[in-house]
């Protein structure tokens, strides 16, 4: 049988050995915690506490600002110190609730939970919404919206995205090794929402141990299959994952539901499981702190809102001066001005690099080698799109399928002339999206 995969893609150095064998370790924050009101796609959350209020761990401090939005919970006990704009990983200033940690970790009483069998579909989705669960793979799309497609009976596959194709990231891997039962249980909960759906655990084949563990756990689950996908970046990209796992292809203007699929990342599925089984809101996530500048690369169970500084300290600090610090993976993460930003629901990793490969090279002229179009998972022509972007040629950019780019970074990675292709195309896409809104 042909390997499950997609056309295009790259094989960068994966750096996962740095942290893959380090068990998850809980980190207790010492300093203030910062909760940006926008940790998801959609309307910002609305604060429901005021400066000076005492809050408890697990207490809701911000309400969803609309249907496509998610509430936010305090992850420590303490006092609301300020509600003010704070810098987040993207460099933007976002209205945030700042909580001074009192170090007591007093927790609220979570409401009684009904057994899964007694919950209706609406109740399950309600629990997920109330818990503030969003896509934790990076996009931050509110999960309850994803779980409420127009025609739920047409959903045929629920895919747990266990690819973790970004180099250096090992947070999903640790979750699968250490708490696979939560992942499988979470998938079973989602399957209850869709009567005609089968579950797929889609894992890249560079994680044979995970595949084995998950296969063993699902041996008696006829509705769940484990699929080993070829290890290749960006295998975890939603469209490429759906294609590899089911053979169905969607373009940028379609939703996974249009192909009868729902896709959720490992940590998201676990968050759903905790919301439904324990009634607990989303308060923690796994963050890989790694890179060759870090003394002791690790996977931490982080209380959302913890400052990145503290995570670096927990990982033994820097062994040499970092030149570039990235929130997320090296392919799609955000480079940080500084460490003084909070972790959010979508922070998967903190990557500290001792060299900046991007700055090492001077971009040269395009020699039309075609490597960019060879590796492009969106099957477009990045070199041409970049030229159209440079010239501000909207018409040609759209005609050459510029909007089908998923900004995965493969073209910039592979380009021998070191041209910033992804960057140029990304800027143009932003302009086009803004024009659409007008």
């Amino acid at each position, binding site marked *: 049988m042909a390997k499950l995969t997609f056309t295009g893609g790259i094989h960068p150095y994966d750096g996962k050995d740095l942290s893959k064998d380090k068990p998850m370790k809980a980190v207790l924050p010492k300093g203030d915690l910062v909760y940006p009101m926008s940790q998801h796609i959609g309307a910002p959350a609305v604060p429901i506490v005021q400066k000076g209020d005492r809050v408890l761990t697990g207490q809701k401090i911000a309400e969803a600002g609309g249907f496509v939005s998610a509430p936010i919970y305090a992850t420590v006990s303490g006092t609301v110190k300020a509600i003010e704009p704070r810098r987040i990983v993207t460099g933007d200033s976002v209205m945030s609730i700042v909580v001074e940690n009192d170090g007591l970790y007093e927790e609220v009483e979570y409401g009684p939970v009904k057994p899964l069998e007694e919950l209706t579909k609406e109740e399950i989705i309600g629990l997920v919404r109330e818990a503030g669960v969003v896509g934790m793979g990076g996009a931050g799309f509110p999960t309850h919206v994803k779980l409420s497609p127009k025609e739920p009976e047409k959903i045929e596959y629920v895919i747990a995205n266990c690819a973790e194709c970004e180099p250096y990231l090992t947070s999903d891997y640790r979750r699968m090794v250490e708490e696979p039962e939560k992942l499988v249980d979470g998938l079973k909960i989602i399957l209850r929402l869709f009567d005609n759906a089968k579950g797929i655990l889609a894992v890249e084949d560079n994680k044979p141990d995970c595949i084995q563990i998950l296969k063993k756990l699902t041996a008696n689950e006829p509705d769940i299959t484990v699929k080993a996908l070829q290890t290749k970046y960006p295998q975890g990209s939603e469209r490429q994952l759906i294609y590899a796992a089911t053979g169905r292809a969607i*373009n940028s203007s*379609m939703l996974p539901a249009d192909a009868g699929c729902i896709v959720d990342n490992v940590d998201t599925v676990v968050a759903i499981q905790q919301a439904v089984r324990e009634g607990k809101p989303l308060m923690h996530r796994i963050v890989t702190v790694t890179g060759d500048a870090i003394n002791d690369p690790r996977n931490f169970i982080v209380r959302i809102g913890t400052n990145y500084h503290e995570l670096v300290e927990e990982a033994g600090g820097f062994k040499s001066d970092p030149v*570039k610090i990235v929130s997320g993976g090296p392919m799609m993460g955000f480079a*940080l001005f*500084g460490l003084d930003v909070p972790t959010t629901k979508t922070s998967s990793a903190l990557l500290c690099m001792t060299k900046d*490969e991007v700055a090492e090279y001077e971009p040269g002229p395009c020699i039309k080698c075609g490597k960019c179009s060879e590796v492009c998972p969106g*099957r477009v022509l990045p070199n041409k799109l970049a030229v159209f972007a440079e010239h501000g040629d909207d018409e040609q950019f759209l005609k050459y399928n510029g909007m089908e780019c998923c900004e995965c970074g493969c073209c*910039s990675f592979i380009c021998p002339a070191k041209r910033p292709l992804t960057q140029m195309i990304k800027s143009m896409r932003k302009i086009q999206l803004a024009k659409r809104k007008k």
Partner: protein
Amino acid sequence: MSDLMKVSSNPHIRSKATTSGIMGAVCVALLPATAFGVYNFGLHALLLILVTVASTVLTEFVYEKLMKKRVTVTDLSAMVTGLLLALNLPPAAPLWIGVIGGVFAILVVKMLFGGLGQNFMNPALGARCFLLISFTSIMTNFDCDAYTGATPLAALKAGESVNVMDMIIGRTSGTIGETSMIAIVIGACILILLDVIDLRIPGTYIVTFVIFITLFGGRGFDTAFISAQLAGGGLMLGAFFMATDYVTRPITKNGQYLFGIFLGIMTGIFRLFGPGAEGVSYAIILGNLLVPLIEKMTVPKAFGKGGERV
């Protein structure tokens, strides 16, 4: 604000491939053909190669200095052009031919159109055709110390018999680098293994050409005739090293097949029905001119719009 870190948009890592690395690989891949040319034709051929390469590299350097542009000779593309041009010269051509050809290739065909990546015609071939038209007698005189008389391809066209084995090994007259099919194919294998080129263009080019001469060569499927046609002239050098030139070939996959088919047909027409025995250079140059059109016709379908299965 002292300790702000460097930021840039994703991705934050780069592959090790560089333009100069690719050009260097092409130079290395041309070494077998170059070495065989020198062995076959003697010291003058080596001198001619060195002078031509020096001419292309110096032209680029001087032009960029005069125009106050960034000097780009370290990307090795001028060296590739010089080497390719030299391999396309008759072994006994005077050294000034190499100098003029080198200047024309870089100055007129490449730099005046904007330098690397902007030329619409393969510089080495552009220069060769310029020399062929301007200095026809020198460029078509393949007599040298080692060989006299017609090239195997010309002999073939005149209806004489040729030794195919000699042609495959390269012990015949011709331009410096085109005679040895074996040396060229070794170089091509290096490029294919290093993932610099693939077989799409050379493969379609050669297959189309074989089909064409089988249909219209008047000899049917005559293996001796076909192998002589394949091993003779600039077909191998052209198919593997000139038609695959990144800048002047279509970037789309389907476009590359079309390009190969076009080259095969044109080479067949020139060789069978043209006045001369050779036609590879003109075929490729004509193909180069069609590239923008071919690319426009063959824009691939995007993922999710029918292009996912390729």
